[in-house]
């Protein structure tokens, strides 16, 4: 099937939203069509399949689709189609010693990204369907056009954001609270990180001060939040965001070496913003995949917790607020789930065999939104399959030094730390 026909089919699927599961036989059928298209249109992936001894036509189960390592995005352009025919290149972060270390995801068709990310975001961060101001601790998509995360939040803000006063159709100077950091243009709350100068502290403080009476959504990288928290704690800045406010944090799983545990991090977010722990959602995404994974903590609340009135501890974020409603605590028990057009396998890191539920393994995602590149991606992230999704354990640290031989990952980590 052609790219255009598959694209239409996928867009139709995305428009159904994420609430209803995609039945296995239909998913399988579509996944195999995507595989056959990609095997045909993507010479690099075709070569990979040939080396694995897999013929697209002979594959009958999506689980047998060859999963390409995520690092392949650092080595070759993975366009399924005319190599020159793409709308945008998203790049992973990180360069080392002048060597090309950034992965590049050539996106043939931004509509596939936009239309897949919006329903999933809405279901997990805005399940009530009420627009609100969205303040991003991220560079704006205009300032950092090759960041897939900035692009995503730009689209989200455009679709669901309001001005700080709650006005839905903001397009004026208020639209960007970033004091010049973001650019104007209908993004709602604003972007408060400059790609070079870092956090826009003043802009973000002002925006926080203006929040209310309705709820706001804060979104950003764990790294940026931690920067903010350190500053806010030093200065004694605390805000109590309007009831119903929420936080989406992401990117905090790059290495379990993160100095801060997740529990500490969430406790500090709760303290600094006065929101319950159950209103903090981790987003797990990667440049190499156009779809995202979220913890369904708010989504559950939006659907079935609304009228229960079980808001225990919500007004005291310090003590009990660490647990949100419906037992959505900040630590154990949380899990991630993807949208219906994504399936995740958990594989033994030594054998690449599927591991039983609950056991640690490598996450391999089949994301049909990746129609224009490669759908099956083997990550370096470790997790466990649980009912409803998977628990993310973290980004592999690679070969942490176990001896006195220089190990690739340890070397790169040391360089980053030292620079």
């Amino acid at each position: 099937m052609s790219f255009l026909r598959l694209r239409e089919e996928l867009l139709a699927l995305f428009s159904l939203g994420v609430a209803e599961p995609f039945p296995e036989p239909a998913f399988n059928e579509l996944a195999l069509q995507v595989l056959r298209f990609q095997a045909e249109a993507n010479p690099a992936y075709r070569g990979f399949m040939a080396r694995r001894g897999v013929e697209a036509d002979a594959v009958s189960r999506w689980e047998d689709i060859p999963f390409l390592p995520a690092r392949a995005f650092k080595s070759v352009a993975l366009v399924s189609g005319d190599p020159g025919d793409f709308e945008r290149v998203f790049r992973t972060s990180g360069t080392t010693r002048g060597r090309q270390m950034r992965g590049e995801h050539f996106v043939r068709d931004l509509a596939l990204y936009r239309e897949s990310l919006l329903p999933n975001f809405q279901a997990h961060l805005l399940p009530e369907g009420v627009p609100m101001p969205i303040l991003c601790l991220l560079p704006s998509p205009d300032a950092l056009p090759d960041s897939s995360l900035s692009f995503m939040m730009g689209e989200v803000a455009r679709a669901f954001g309001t001005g700080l006063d709650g006005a839905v159709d903001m397009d004026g100077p208020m639209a960007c609270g970033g004091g010049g950091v973001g650019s104007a243009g209908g993004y709602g709350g604003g972007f408060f990180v400059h790609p070079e100068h870092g956090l826009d502290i003043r802009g973000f403080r002002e925006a926080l001060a203006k929040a209310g009476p309705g709820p706001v959504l804060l979104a950003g990288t764990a790294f940026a939040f931690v920067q903010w928290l350190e500053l806010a704690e030093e200065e004694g800045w605390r805000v109590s965001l309007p009831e119903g406010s929420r936080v989406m944090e992401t990117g905090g799983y790059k290495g379990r070496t993160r100095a801060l545990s997740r529990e500490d991090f969430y406790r500090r977010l709760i303290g600094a913003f006065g929101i319950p722990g159950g209103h903090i959602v981790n987003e797990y995404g990667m440049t190499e995949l156009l779809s995202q994974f979220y913890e369904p903590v708010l989504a559950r609340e939006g659907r079935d917790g609304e009228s229960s009135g079980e808001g225990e501890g919500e007004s005291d974020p310090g003590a009990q607020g660490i647990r949100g409603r419906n037992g959505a605590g900040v630590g154990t028990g949380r899990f991630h789930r993807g949208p219906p057009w994504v399936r995740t396998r958990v594989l033994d890191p030594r054998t690449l065999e599927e591991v039983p539920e609950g056991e640690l393994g490598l996450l391999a995602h089949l994301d049909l939104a990746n129609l224009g590149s490669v759908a099956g991606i083997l990550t370096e992230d470790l997790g466990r399959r649980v009912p409803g999704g998977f628990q993310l354990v973290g980004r592999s640290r690679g070969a942490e030094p176990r001896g006195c031989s220089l190990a690739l990952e340890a070397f790169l980590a040391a360089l980053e730390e030292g620079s």
Partner: protein
Amino acid sequence: MNPLRAWRFPPEFPLADGDIVSLHDPPAPPLEHPVLAEDRLRDLMAMLRTARDELLVDLPVERVVRAVDRVACRLLDPGDELRKRALEELGPHAGLSDPMAETILDRMAFDWTRERLLGLLTSEFPDPQVLDGFRPGTRGCMVRALGFPLTFHLGSGTVPGVSVTSLVRALLVKSAVLLKPGRGDVTLPVVFASGLHEEDPDLARSVAVAYWPGREGGQVESAVRKADLVVVYGGDDTVRWVRERLPPATSLRVYRHRLGVGLVGRGGLGGDAPSTAREAARAVALFDQRGCVSPHVLFVEEGGATDPGGWAGLLAGALQELEETLPSGHLTEDEGALLQQLRGLGELEEGTGRGAVYHGGPRAPWTVLFTPGGRLEPSCLNRTVRVIPVGDLAEALADMEAWRPYLQTVGVVGLGGRKEEVAEALTRLGVSRITSLKALPWPPPWWHHDGEGPLRALVRWTDVEPAGP
């Protein structure tokens, strides 16, 4: 198996309730380790210092050699309980297979025997008795060499024996030793120190071995602050951490992580190509590639009877064979994660006509990446090696330039008449050891470890000058 008791203190140092806690970090077997409060660590270090000043400093070096040799011989004696204990615990705690653990123990313990130690002493000091008292030096001076009173050795990783070698070196120059080995190298220092207590209790009073996880919590920092010399085996991150805490008057010796390289000249690619490949495979496989000497990349010259691609295939075959005699150890999830990325990348490259990848599949981690146009870079370890073809070895030397601070051992074969020329070029790149692929895994005790004399790096000299004119 009972939990490994990951410490050995002098008998005078009483253990209190609560000093010892359990640790179980599967797949490693459980162990018990001490958690010493600040004042207890201070007492321990003071005790070591006293034992050194009152006993060790007056013992002749010959006696140290004798004691170490006796322990080494027991570790080599198949009937001895000490060896049995070592072998029972070594593999599981280091994450190495039992045959690998035994091979390593045999070679390491051999280097702690009398003949090898005397070789080390005479290589370092023309007159080793300079460690016992003043001896005539040059120009009429009387000279004496003595180690620092109290040394703290911070080990890392899972190459068994590295910590014991560090301990033995310090004892030879009459330094007391507090040793914190890496998690995977706990067994041998504890067993060795136990043997030392049995063979020469007086000498052993200057030795304490204690493992505890991590470096936070203040104990490592306290030890760094109270020692006279700190010896660190570790990555750049560890070294930076120690340097930041080192008092200005305290000496530091650093053995950093290294990037081993092999150079296979076209002279080694004739009829002997299979044996060259077997030697290279063994060098990669030993220590599961975690040694500082372990090669990460093999540059192979074109124009020989066997082309580099064909040689990479021979290497793969040899690595597969070694799985029978010297099986791989346990791969962690993190290591597996990276390995699968590299294998997948290799398959992508081979599938698109750039190079080839050979690997042990789900059963064995060994992986050979034949990478035309590839560059020198660290491997993910556990027997993953890159074979890079070069038109001339000069290209390899140029590529090594960027890794200068990480170079140490280079294994060479088939250089023909270019041996001296290549050795000189490698020297200028900062390489401190050039050897055959066959000998690569086992530097002799007297090697210039990272370019320094292993004992001379640990002593201070005193000169008594001749009376004036």
